[in-house]
């Protein structure tokens, strides 16, 4: 075990390199995912067939084909067509397209979930379609889509492991190397699990923060949030206090009875 720890410490610089590759793929992939999701998601809510139908086809295509095959296409087939991409770009591109297609569906359904009354009020005020979307509908849909996007971005993080097949040395690859140098399979893969878990947890925390901000801007809190529960407890306490006050002798002293020894 101590040998393992020593090997781990010695291989930390390489592990860190792997983590960096994984992080770059995750962050750039997430940004690409969200951009593609918004473009395709909005296009899918368009009343115009010439926008909606191509977007729907792109989404179904990238959802329906494997991420690995998409990466192979970018890496092995594109050069045959005269387009050379470096492995990192292939990874980011394939991750963005694949998860962007999934997320586009989230964007579309969140926009459709916004109360129709909001659209109607925006039309009644004669806001232009762009203004309607940017100022009224999207900010409300954004709060709805964050939880599902969080799940997809964590999936994306785990999906980055496939870049191993196109010569990139990411976290998974470095873990494999750690396994070879320690000869301890359980140890190496446990380290891998922990590191992936920590990154996923960070993504979740970030998305929770975004969700809190988005719901706060809508003047409400996340359903069943901690502050909701706190408020419910406070109300319950106030209620029981009021009842306690009512059952004791009414009069100027009842307040003191209610507050008990605290006064």
């Amino acid at each position, binding site marked *: 075990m101590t040998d393992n720890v020593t090997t781990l410490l010695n291989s930390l610089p390489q592990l860190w390199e792997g983590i960096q590759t994984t992080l770059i793929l995750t962050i750039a992939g997430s940004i690409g995912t969200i951009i593609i999701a918004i473009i395709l998601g909005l296009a899918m809510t368009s009343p115009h067939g010439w926008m909606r139908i191509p977007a729907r086809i792109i989404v179904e295509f990238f959802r329906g084909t494997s991420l690995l095959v998409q990466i192979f296409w970018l890496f092995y087939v594109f050069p045959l067509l005269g387009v050379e991409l470096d492995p990192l770009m292939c990874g980011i591109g394939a991750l963005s397209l694949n998860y962007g297609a999934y997320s586009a569906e989230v964007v579309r359904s969140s926009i459709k979930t916004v109360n129709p009354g909001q659209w109607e009020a925006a039309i009644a005020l004669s806001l232009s379609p762009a203004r309607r979307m940017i100022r009224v509908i999207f900010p409300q849909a954004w709060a709805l889509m964050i939880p599902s996007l969080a799940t997809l971005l964590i999936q994306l993080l785990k999906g980055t492991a496939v870049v191993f097949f196109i010569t990139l040395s990411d976290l998974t690859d470095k873990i494999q190397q750690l396994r070879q140098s320690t000869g301890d399979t359980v140890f190496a893969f446990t380290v891998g699990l922990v590191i992936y878990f920590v990154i996923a947890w960070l993504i979740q925390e970030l998305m929770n923060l975004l969700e809190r901000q988005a719901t706060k*801007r809508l003047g*409400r809190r996340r359903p069943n949030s901690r502050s909701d529960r706190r408020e419910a407890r406070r109300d319950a306490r106030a209620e029981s206090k009021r009842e306690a006050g009512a059952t004791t002798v009414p009069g100027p002293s009842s307040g003191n009875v209610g507050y008990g020894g605290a006064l």
Partner: protein
Amino acid sequence: MEKSFGKTTVLKDLNFTVAPGERVTLIGPSGSGKTTILRLVMTLEELTGGYIFVDGEPLTHTEKNGKRVELPSKTTRAMTTRIGMVFQQFNLFPNMTVLENIIEAPIHVLGRSKADAVAEAKSLLDKVGLADKADEHPTRLSGGQQQRVAIARALAMSPEILLLDEVTSALDPELVGDVLGVLRDIAETTDITMLLVTHEMQFAREVSHRVMMFDGGQVLEEGPPDQIFNNPQHERTRTFLSSVQ
């Protein structure tokens, strides 16, 4: 005008005119098409047949070489700036403060300056008795307060026509009075043309010049409120009025 949803025809061969400054109340059982009329005028529903004119100008469709053609959406949107609507469910934008709700359209649709729009919004809030709520989020307000903000938001566009769709139906009874008070004030102090759908018969009697009784997408009878409420000609109107009063 004519309106059908799929194969169901809600309004057929309906034809009526509202004079500038006139206040008309539409009454009738649910499903009689009265809310649909307001929604058609606000372009929230697609008019499936016929035409709507505002001040002589076509709203959504026009006749060209004997054919009924749809107007460009920009033209229609320019027309709808002259029409305001207040909804049963208020429909304030929760991602904006009360003030932002009111100034959004005057600034971005009418091109007013922000300072003008804010000043106008504040005076409207004052008028509806909510001057201290400008920076609140709508979700923090009671239903009655939200509805008064919604009225201020519609008025901020200086509409020539105001459509009121059961604006008190979603309110607790004790909040109805405030909203009706604001509307009564608007009726008395402005010459905005109003089309109301309401179940508040007393209110309809007080503010409207004309009452139209609808049934099955047709105007069953119409006339001054006194005539409709005191001396209805149709049995259907009588049973309807006795069921709501």
